[in-house]
Protein backbone atom coordinates (compact mmCIF):
# COMPACT_ATOMS: atom_id res chain seq x y z
CA UNK A 1 0.00 0.00 0.00
CA UNK A 2 1.36 3.40 -0.97
CA UNK A 3 1.92 5.85 1.87
CA UNK A 4 0.29 9.25 1.93
CA UNK A 5 3.60 10.95 1.13
CA UNK A 6 4.30 8.64 -1.79
CA UNK A 7 0.84 9.10 -3.20
CA UNK A 8 0.74 12.85 -2.75
CA UNK A 9 4.05 13.18 -4.63
CA UNK A 10 2.47 11.50 -7.62
CA UNK A 11 -0.92 13.22 -7.68
CA UNK A 12 0.20 15.80 -10.24
CA UNK A 13 1.58 13.08 -12.48
CA UNK A 14 -1.65 11.12 -12.12
CA UNK A 15 -3.67 14.21 -13.04
CA UNK A 16 -1.65 14.29 -16.26
CA UNK A 17 -2.14 10.52 -16.80
CA UNK A 18 1.65 10.31 -16.57
CA UNK A 19 1.88 7.21 -14.39
CA UNK A 20 1.76 3.59 -15.47
CA UNK A 21 -1.25 1.42 -14.74
CA UNK A 22 0.29 -0.27 -11.67
CA UNK A 23 1.13 3.05 -10.05
CA UNK A 24 -2.25 4.42 -10.98
CA UNK A 25 -4.00 1.61 -9.15
CA UNK A 26 -1.89 2.16 -6.05
CA UNK A 27 -2.42 5.90 -6.01
CA UNK A 28 -6.15 5.55 -6.62
CA UNK A 29 -6.41 3.04 -3.81
CA UNK A 30 -4.90 5.60 -1.45
CA UNK A 31 -6.95 8.48 -2.84
CA UNK A 32 -10.16 6.52 -2.33
CA UNK A 33 -9.58 6.63 1.41
CA UNK A 34 -7.87 10.01 1.70
CA UNK A 35 -10.18 13.03 1.29
CA UNK A 36 -7.22 15.41 1.29
CA UNK A 37 -5.58 13.65 -1.63
CA UNK A 38 -8.95 13.34 -3.38
CA UNK A 39 -9.45 17.08 -3.14
CA UNK A 40 -5.91 17.78 -4.30
CA UNK A 41 -6.28 15.38 -7.24
CA UNK A 42 -9.61 16.94 -8.29
CA UNK A 43 -8.00 20.35 -8.20
CA UNK A 44 -4.97 19.25 -10.22
CA UNK A 45 -7.23 17.58 -12.75
CA UNK A 46 -8.99 20.89 -13.24
CA UNK A 47 -5.60 22.43 -14.01
CA UNK A 48 -4.82 19.61 -16.44
CA UNK A 49 -8.20 20.04 -18.13
CA UNK A 50 -7.65 23.76 -18.40
CA UNK A 51 -4.50 22.98 -20.39
CA UNK A 52 -6.52 20.81 -22.74
CA UNK A 53 -9.36 23.25 -23.06
CA UNK A 54 -8.83 24.38 -26.62
CA UNK A 55 -11.84 23.77 -28.80
CA UNK A 56 -11.48 22.21 -32.19
CA UNK A 57 -14.05 22.24 -34.96
CA UNK A 58 -16.10 19.09 -34.68
CA UNK A 59 -15.80 16.68 -37.59
CA UNK A 60 -18.83 16.28 -39.82
CA UNK A 61 -20.68 13.10 -38.97
CA UNK A 62 -19.20 12.52 -35.52
CA UNK A 63 -22.44 13.13 -33.67
CA UNK A 64 -24.24 10.78 -36.03
CA UNK A 65 -21.67 8.12 -35.24
CA UNK A 66 -22.30 8.50 -31.54
CA UNK A 67 -26.04 8.57 -31.98
CA UNK A 68 -25.96 5.59 -34.29
CA UNK A 69 -24.04 3.54 -31.78
CA UNK A 70 -26.55 4.36 -29.10
CA UNK A 71 -29.32 3.36 -31.45
CA UNK A 72 -27.62 0.12 -32.43
CA UNK A 73 -27.05 -0.69 -28.80
CA UNK A 74 -30.73 -0.37 -28.11
CA UNK A 75 -32.11 -1.88 -31.27
CA UNK A 76 -29.42 -4.00 -32.84
CA UNK A 77 -29.92 -2.37 -36.19
CA UNK A 78 -28.98 0.64 -38.24
CA UNK A 79 -31.25 3.64 -38.03
CA UNK A 80 -32.72 5.55 -40.94
CA UNK A 81 -30.32 7.64 -42.93
CA UNK A 82 -31.06 11.10 -41.70
CA UNK A 83 -30.54 12.45 -38.25
CA UNK A 84 -31.55 15.87 -37.18
CA UNK A 85 -31.19 16.59 -33.54
CA UNK A 86 -31.16 19.83 -31.70
CA UNK A 87 -29.85 21.73 -34.64
CA UNK A 88 -27.30 19.12 -35.65
CA UNK A 89 -27.94 17.65 -39.05
CA UNK A 90 -25.76 14.91 -40.35
CA UNK A 91 -25.94 11.82 -42.46
CA UNK A 92 -25.67 8.65 -40.47
CA UNK A 93 -23.36 5.82 -41.24
CA UNK A 94 -23.19 2.26 -40.17
CA UNK A 95 -20.87 1.52 -37.29
CA UNK A 96 -19.81 -1.41 -35.27
CA UNK A 97 -22.15 -2.57 -32.57
CA UNK A 98 -21.49 -1.38 -29.08
CA UNK A 99 -20.08 -3.91 -26.71
CA UNK A 100 -21.59 -2.59 -23.53
CA UNK A 101 -25.22 -1.85 -22.96
CA UNK A 102 -26.98 0.29 -20.50
CA UNK A 103 -29.07 -2.14 -18.54
CA UNK A 104 -32.12 -0.04 -17.95
CA UNK A 105 -35.02 0.41 -20.31
CA UNK A 106 -34.87 3.45 -22.48
CA UNK A 107 -37.26 6.29 -22.67
CA UNK A 108 -36.68 8.92 -25.24
CA UNK A 109 -33.65 7.98 -27.19
CA UNK A 110 -34.50 6.41 -30.40
CA UNK A 111 -31.72 8.40 -31.74
CA UNK A 112 -32.40 8.87 -35.39
CA UNK A 113 -36.12 8.97 -35.15
CA UNK A 114 -36.36 10.54 -31.74
CA UNK A 115 -34.27 13.20 -33.29
CA UNK A 116 -36.98 13.87 -35.72
CA UNK A 117 -39.39 13.83 -32.94
CA UNK A 118 -38.79 15.66 -29.80
CA UNK A 119 -38.16 16.19 -26.39
CA UNK A 120 -38.45 19.09 -24.14
CA UNK A 121 -40.41 17.82 -21.21
CA UNK A 122 -40.17 20.76 -18.91
CA UNK A 123 -43.69 20.43 -17.67
CA UNK A 124 -44.02 16.70 -17.64
CA UNK A 125 -40.83 16.41 -15.64
CA UNK A 126 -42.58 18.23 -12.86
CA UNK A 127 -45.11 15.46 -12.59
CA UNK A 128 -42.63 12.68 -13.29
CA UNK A 129 -40.07 13.83 -10.79
CA UNK A 130 -40.99 14.38 -7.18
CA UNK A 131 -37.85 16.46 -6.62
CA UNK A 132 -39.34 19.36 -8.47
CA UNK A 133 -42.88 19.07 -7.20
CA UNK A 134 -42.47 22.33 -5.31
CA UNK A 135 -42.14 24.03 -8.64
CA UNK A 136 -45.48 22.76 -9.79
CA UNK A 137 -47.57 25.76 -8.89
CA UNK A 138 -45.20 28.14 -10.61
CA UNK A 139 -45.03 25.83 -13.57
CA UNK A 140 -48.77 25.55 -13.70
CA UNK A 141 -49.18 29.27 -13.91
CA UNK A 142 -46.58 29.73 -16.61
CA UNK A 143 -47.71 26.63 -18.44
CA UNK A 144 -51.27 27.87 -18.60
CA UNK A 145 -50.03 31.12 -20.07
CA UNK A 146 -47.94 29.27 -22.61
CA UNK A 147 -50.83 27.04 -23.62
CA UNK A 148 -53.19 30.01 -23.94
CA UNK A 149 -50.64 31.80 -26.10
CA UNK A 150 -50.21 28.67 -28.21
CA UNK A 151 -53.94 28.45 -28.79
CA UNK A 152 -53.89 31.99 -30.16
CA UNK A 153 -50.91 31.39 -32.46
CA UNK A 154 -51.72 31.55 -36.18
CA UNK A 155 -51.33 28.21 -37.90
CA UNK A 156 -51.67 26.18 -34.73
CA UNK A 157 -53.19 22.74 -35.03
CA UNK A 158 -55.33 20.93 -32.48
CA UNK A 159 -54.87 17.19 -32.10
CA UNK A 160 -57.61 15.32 -30.29
CA UNK A 161 -56.53 12.02 -28.84
CA UNK A 162 -59.39 9.56 -28.50
CA UNK A 163 -59.79 6.10 -27.09
CA UNK A 164 -60.85 3.20 -29.27
CA UNK A 165 -64.39 3.92 -28.12
CA UNK A 166 -63.98 7.46 -29.49
CA UNK A 167 -63.92 9.07 -26.06
CA UNK A 168 -61.77 12.17 -26.14
CA UNK A 169 -59.01 11.69 -23.56
CA UNK A 170 -56.59 14.48 -24.38
CA UNK A 171 -56.04 17.44 -26.63
CA UNK A 172 -52.71 18.85 -27.79
CA UNK A 173 -51.97 22.06 -29.61
CA UNK A 174 -49.13 21.91 -32.12
CA UNK A 175 -47.40 25.06 -33.32
CA UNK A 176 -45.81 25.59 -36.73
CA UNK A 177 -42.36 25.86 -35.10
CA UNK A 178 -42.61 22.33 -33.72
CA UNK A 179 -43.66 23.03 -30.17
CA UNK A 180 -46.58 21.16 -28.73
CA UNK A 181 -48.54 21.44 -25.49
CA UNK A 182 -51.19 19.48 -23.70
CA UNK A 183 -54.34 21.59 -23.67
CA UNK A 184 -56.57 19.31 -21.65
CA UNK A 185 -56.65 15.78 -20.39
CA UNK A 186 -59.36 13.44 -19.22
CA UNK A 187 -56.99 10.58 -18.70
CA UNK A 188 -57.52 8.85 -15.37
CA UNK A 189 -54.75 8.92 -12.78
CA UNK A 190 -52.51 5.86 -12.78
CA UNK A 191 -50.78 4.15 -9.91
CA UNK A 192 -47.40 5.60 -8.99
CA UNK A 193 -45.56 2.74 -10.64
CA UNK A 194 -47.08 3.56 -14.02
CA UNK A 195 -46.83 6.49 -16.41
CA UNK A 196 -48.50 7.70 -19.55
CA UNK A 197 -46.02 7.81 -22.39
CA UNK A 198 -46.50 9.98 -25.47
CA UNK A 199 -45.43 8.70 -28.87
CA UNK A 200 -45.12 10.38 -32.24
CA UNK A 201 -45.80 8.02 -35.13
CA UNK A 202 -43.37 8.60 -37.99
CA UNK A 203 -43.52 6.38 -41.06
CA UNK A 204 -45.61 3.93 -39.06
CA UNK A 205 -43.06 3.69 -36.25
CA UNK A 206 -43.84 5.02 -32.76
CA UNK A 207 -41.09 7.30 -31.46
CA UNK A 208 -41.02 8.20 -27.79
CA UNK A 209 -41.77 11.85 -27.24
CA UNK A 210 -41.51 11.44 -23.51
CA UNK A 211 -43.26 10.67 -20.28
CA UNK A 212 -46.46 12.39 -19.24
CA UNK A 213 -46.47 11.17 -15.67
CA UNK A 214 -49.19 9.26 -13.86
CA UNK A 215 -51.62 12.16 -13.85
CA UNK A 216 -50.97 14.33 -16.90
CA UNK A 217 -51.46 17.99 -16.35
CA UNK A 218 -48.83 20.05 -18.12
CA UNK A 219 -46.84 18.56 -20.96
CA UNK A 220 -44.69 20.43 -23.42
CA UNK A 221 -42.40 19.17 -26.13
CA UNK A 222 -40.62 20.26 -29.26
CA UNK A 223 -40.49 18.47 -32.57
CA UNK A 224 -37.10 19.47 -33.91
CA UNK A 225 -36.61 19.06 -37.63
CA UNK A 226 -37.22 15.93 -39.64
CA UNK A 227 -40.58 14.50 -40.57
CA UNK A 228 -43.63 15.51 -38.58
CA UNK A 229 -45.42 12.71 -36.74
CA UNK A 230 -48.55 11.58 -38.57
CA UNK A 231 -50.27 10.94 -35.26
CA UNK A 232 -49.78 11.15 -31.52
CA UNK A 233 -50.38 8.04 -29.41
CA UNK A 234 -50.46 7.49 -25.66
CA UNK A 235 -49.75 4.21 -23.90
CA UNK A 236 -49.53 3.21 -20.25
CA UNK A 237 -46.04 2.06 -19.37
CA UNK A 238 -44.06 1.21 -16.24
CA UNK A 239 -42.78 4.29 -14.41
CA UNK A 240 -39.55 5.32 -16.09
CA UNK A 241 -40.98 4.59 -19.50
CA UNK A 242 -39.99 2.19 -22.21
CA UNK A 243 -38.11 2.28 -25.45
CA UNK A 244 -41.03 0.90 -27.46
CA UNK A 245 -44.71 0.65 -26.53
CA UNK A 246 -45.35 -2.43 -24.42
CA UNK A 247 -49.08 -1.97 -24.07
CA UNK A 248 -52.00 -1.10 -26.36
CA UNK A 249 -52.55 2.50 -27.36
CA UNK A 250 -55.05 4.07 -24.99
CA UNK A 251 -55.48 7.29 -26.94
CA UNK A 252 -54.57 8.33 -30.46
CA UNK A 253 -55.11 11.31 -32.75
CA UNK A 254 -54.03 12.33 -36.24
CA UNK A 255 -51.49 15.15 -36.09
Amino acid at each position, binding site marked *: MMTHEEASELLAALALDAVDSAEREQIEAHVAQCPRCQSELDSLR*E*VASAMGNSVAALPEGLWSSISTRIYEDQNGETPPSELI*LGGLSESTRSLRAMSSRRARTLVSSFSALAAAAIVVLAFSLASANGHVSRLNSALNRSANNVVQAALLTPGRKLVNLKSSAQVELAQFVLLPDGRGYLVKSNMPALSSNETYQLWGVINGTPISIGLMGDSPNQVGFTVSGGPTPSSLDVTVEPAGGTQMPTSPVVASGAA
Partner: protein
Amino acid sequence: MQEFSEASDAQLVTSIGRYSEVALAEVYRRHGGAVYGLARRVLNNATEAEDVTQEVFLRLWNQPDRYDPVRGSLRSFLLAQSHARAVDAIRSLNSRRVRETNEAVKTARAEYDMQHEVWDLTVTHHVAQALGELPEEERRAIELAYFEGHTYVQVAQILNQPEGTVKSRIRNGMQRMRSVLVEAGVQEVE
Protein backbone atom coordinates in the same frame (compact mmCIF):
# COMPACT_ATOMS: atom_id res chain seq x y z
CA MET B 1 -40.53 26.23 -20.65
CA GLN B 2 -36.94 25.25 -20.02
CA GLU B 3 -34.96 24.45 -23.12
CA PHE B 4 -31.98 22.14 -22.83
CA SER B 5 -29.84 24.88 -24.29
CA GLU B 6 -30.47 26.84 -21.11
CA ALA B 7 -29.99 23.96 -18.69
CA SER B 8 -26.89 23.67 -16.51
CA ASP B 9 -24.41 20.91 -17.20
CA ALA B 10 -25.52 19.11 -14.05
CA GLN B 11 -29.17 19.26 -15.18
CA LEU B 12 -28.17 17.87 -18.56
CA VAL B 13 -26.38 14.94 -16.95
CA THR B 14 -29.46 14.27 -14.85
CA SER B 15 -31.54 14.24 -18.03
CA ILE B 16 -29.05 11.89 -19.66
CA GLY B 17 -29.69 9.60 -16.72
CA ARG B 18 -33.31 9.68 -17.81
CA TYR B 19 -32.28 8.66 -21.31
CA SER B 20 -32.64 12.01 -22.96
CA GLU B 21 -30.52 11.86 -26.07
CA VAL B 22 -31.30 15.50 -26.67
CA ALA B 23 -29.53 16.30 -23.41
CA LEU B 24 -26.54 14.27 -24.59
CA ALA B 25 -26.60 16.20 -27.86
CA GLU B 26 -26.52 19.45 -25.92
CA VAL B 27 -23.53 18.25 -23.87
CA TYR B 28 -21.86 17.27 -27.12
CA ARG B 29 -22.57 20.70 -28.55
CA ARG B 30 -21.07 22.39 -25.52
CA HIS B 31 -18.07 20.19 -24.87
CA GLY B 32 -17.59 17.95 -27.92
CA GLY B 33 -15.16 20.33 -29.54
CA ALA B 34 -12.97 20.41 -26.46
CA VAL B 35 -13.08 16.63 -26.04
CA TYR B 36 -12.20 16.08 -29.68
CA GLY B 37 -9.63 18.86 -29.70
CA LEU B 38 -7.69 17.42 -26.79
CA ALA B 39 -7.79 13.87 -28.16
CA ARG B 40 -6.59 15.15 -31.49
CA ARG B 41 -3.81 17.14 -29.96
CA VAL B 42 -2.55 14.16 -27.96
CA LEU B 43 -3.02 11.61 -30.72
CA ASN B 44 -2.28 13.81 -33.72
CA ASN B 45 -4.68 11.65 -35.63
CA ALA B 46 -8.17 12.75 -36.56
CA THR B 47 -9.68 9.28 -36.93
CA GLU B 48 -8.40 8.07 -33.58
CA ALA B 49 -9.51 11.32 -31.98
CA GLU B 50 -13.02 10.69 -33.31
CA ASP B 51 -12.96 7.21 -31.77
CA VAL B 52 -11.90 8.65 -28.43
CA THR B 53 -14.64 11.28 -28.60
CA GLN B 54 -17.22 8.62 -29.35
CA GLU B 55 -16.06 6.55 -26.41
CA VAL B 56 -16.18 9.52 -24.06
CA PHE B 57 -19.77 10.41 -24.98
CA LEU B 58 -20.97 6.81 -25.07
CA ARG B 59 -19.53 6.35 -21.60
CA LEU B 60 -21.36 9.41 -20.41
CA TRP B 61 -24.53 7.99 -21.91
CA ASN B 62 -24.03 4.59 -20.34
CA GLN B 63 -22.69 5.75 -16.99
CA PRO B 64 -23.83 9.33 -16.31
CA ASP B 65 -23.62 8.73 -12.58
CA ARG B 66 -19.83 8.62 -12.82
CA TYR B 67 -19.86 12.38 -13.09
CA ASP B 68 -19.96 14.05 -9.70
CA PRO B 69 -20.58 17.81 -10.00
CA VAL B 70 -19.16 18.32 -6.53
CA ARG B 71 -15.75 17.20 -7.72
CA GLY B 72 -15.44 19.49 -10.70
CA SER B 73 -16.90 20.81 -13.91
CA LEU B 74 -18.36 18.56 -16.58
CA ARG B 75 -15.88 19.98 -19.07
CA SER B 76 -13.03 18.94 -16.81
CA PHE B 77 -14.53 15.49 -16.30
CA LEU B 78 -14.95 14.92 -20.03
CA LEU B 79 -11.49 16.23 -20.83
CA ALA B 80 -9.97 13.92 -18.23
CA GLN B 81 -11.78 11.02 -19.91
CA SER B 82 -10.65 12.14 -23.33
CA HIS B 83 -7.05 12.52 -22.22
CA ALA B 84 -6.92 9.18 -20.43
CA ARG B 85 -8.29 7.38 -23.49
CA ALA B 86 -5.98 9.18 -25.85
CA VAL B 87 -3.00 8.28 -23.68
CA ASP B 88 -4.15 4.68 -23.48
CA ALA B 89 -4.35 4.60 -27.26
CA ILE B 90 -0.82 5.94 -27.58
CA ARG B 91 0.61 3.50 -25.07
CA SER B 92 -1.18 0.54 -26.59
CA LEU B 93 0.76 0.96 -29.79
CA ASN B 94 4.04 -0.90 -30.11
CA SER B 95 5.65 2.00 -31.79
CA ARG B 96 4.58 5.51 -32.24
CA ARG B 97 2.67 6.16 -35.40
CA VAL B 98 3.81 8.64 -37.90
CA ARG B 99 1.77 11.52 -36.75
CA GLU B 100 -0.23 13.75 -38.95
CA THR B 101 0.84 17.31 -39.19
CA ASN B 102 -0.48 18.93 -36.10
CA GLU B 103 -3.06 21.35 -37.35
CA ALA B 104 -3.41 24.42 -35.23
CA VAL B 105 -6.22 24.03 -32.78
CA LYS B 106 -9.02 26.23 -33.89
CA THR B 107 -10.90 28.46 -31.62
CA ALA B 108 -14.41 27.64 -30.56
CA ARG B 109 -16.76 26.80 -33.38
CA ALA B 110 -18.86 24.14 -31.78
CA GLU B 111 -22.16 25.93 -32.27
CA TYR B 112 -21.94 26.91 -28.65
CA ASP B 113 -22.94 30.31 -27.50
CA MET B 114 -20.71 33.34 -27.61
CA GLN B 115 -20.44 33.70 -23.86
CA HIS B 116 -18.95 30.24 -23.49
CA GLU B 117 -16.73 30.70 -26.50
CA VAL B 118 -15.30 33.81 -24.92
CA TRP B 119 -14.79 31.92 -21.68
CA ASP B 120 -13.01 29.11 -23.49
CA LEU B 121 -10.76 31.58 -25.19
CA THR B 122 -10.10 33.33 -21.89
CA VAL B 123 -9.11 30.06 -20.23
CA THR B 124 -6.94 29.16 -23.18
CA HIS B 125 -5.22 32.52 -22.99
CA HIS B 126 -4.51 32.27 -19.27
CA VAL B 127 -3.31 28.69 -19.53
CA ALA B 128 -0.93 29.60 -22.31
CA GLN B 129 0.31 32.47 -20.20
CA ALA B 130 0.66 30.29 -17.10
CA LEU B 131 2.56 27.63 -19.03
CA GLY B 132 4.79 30.25 -20.55
CA GLU B 133 5.70 31.62 -17.15
CA LEU B 134 6.84 28.26 -15.80
CA PRO B 135 10.55 27.51 -15.58
CA GLU B 136 11.55 25.79 -18.82
CA GLU B 137 12.31 22.44 -17.17
CA GLU B 138 8.89 22.31 -15.48
CA ARG B 139 7.00 23.36 -18.62
CA ARG B 140 8.84 20.82 -20.76
CA ALA B 141 8.15 17.98 -18.32
CA ILE B 142 4.46 18.85 -18.13
CA GLU B 143 4.08 19.19 -21.89
CA LEU B 144 5.84 15.89 -22.59
CA ALA B 145 3.59 14.17 -20.09
CA TYR B 146 0.28 15.79 -20.92
CA PHE B 147 0.39 16.52 -24.62
CA GLU B 148 2.56 13.62 -25.74
CA GLY B 149 1.23 10.99 -23.39
CA HIS B 150 4.50 9.99 -21.69
CA THR B 151 4.71 8.68 -18.15
CA TYR B 152 6.96 10.66 -15.82
CA VAL B 153 9.44 7.76 -16.04
CA GLN B 154 9.56 8.15 -19.81
CA VAL B 155 9.85 11.90 -19.46
CA ALA B 156 12.85 11.37 -17.19
CA GLN B 157 14.46 9.20 -19.86
CA ILE B 158 13.74 11.71 -22.61
CA LEU B 159 15.15 14.58 -20.59
CA ASN B 160 17.93 12.48 -19.16
CA GLN B 161 16.99 13.49 -15.64
CA PRO B 162 16.40 11.46 -12.45
CA GLU B 163 12.80 10.26 -12.05
CA GLY B 164 12.48 12.00 -8.71
CA THR B 165 13.50 15.29 -10.26
CA VAL B 166 10.90 14.99 -13.02
CA LYS B 167 8.26 14.00 -10.52
CA SER B 168 9.01 17.13 -8.49
CA ARG B 169 9.07 19.36 -11.55
CA ILE B 170 5.67 18.13 -12.67
CA ARG B 171 4.29 18.62 -9.20
CA ASN B 172 5.77 22.07 -8.71
CA GLY B 173 4.77 23.18 -12.19
CA MET B 174 1.18 22.03 -11.77
CA GLN B 175 0.88 23.77 -8.43
CA ARG B 176 2.39 26.92 -9.87
CA MET B 177 -0.08 26.81 -12.75
CA ARG B 178 -2.94 26.34 -10.39
CA SER B 179 -1.91 29.44 -8.47
CA VAL B 180 -1.74 31.49 -11.65
CA LEU B 181 -5.14 30.24 -12.84
CA VAL B 182 -6.74 30.88 -9.46
CA GLU B 183 -5.29 34.37 -9.46
CA ALA B 184 -6.63 34.94 -12.96
CA GLY B 185 -10.05 33.81 -11.82
CA VAL B 186 -10.36 30.87 -14.22
CA GLN B 187 -9.97 28.25 -11.51
CA GLU B 188 -11.74 27.98 -8.22
CA VAL B 189 -9.81 28.07 -4.98
CA GLU B 190 -9.78 24.65 -3.35
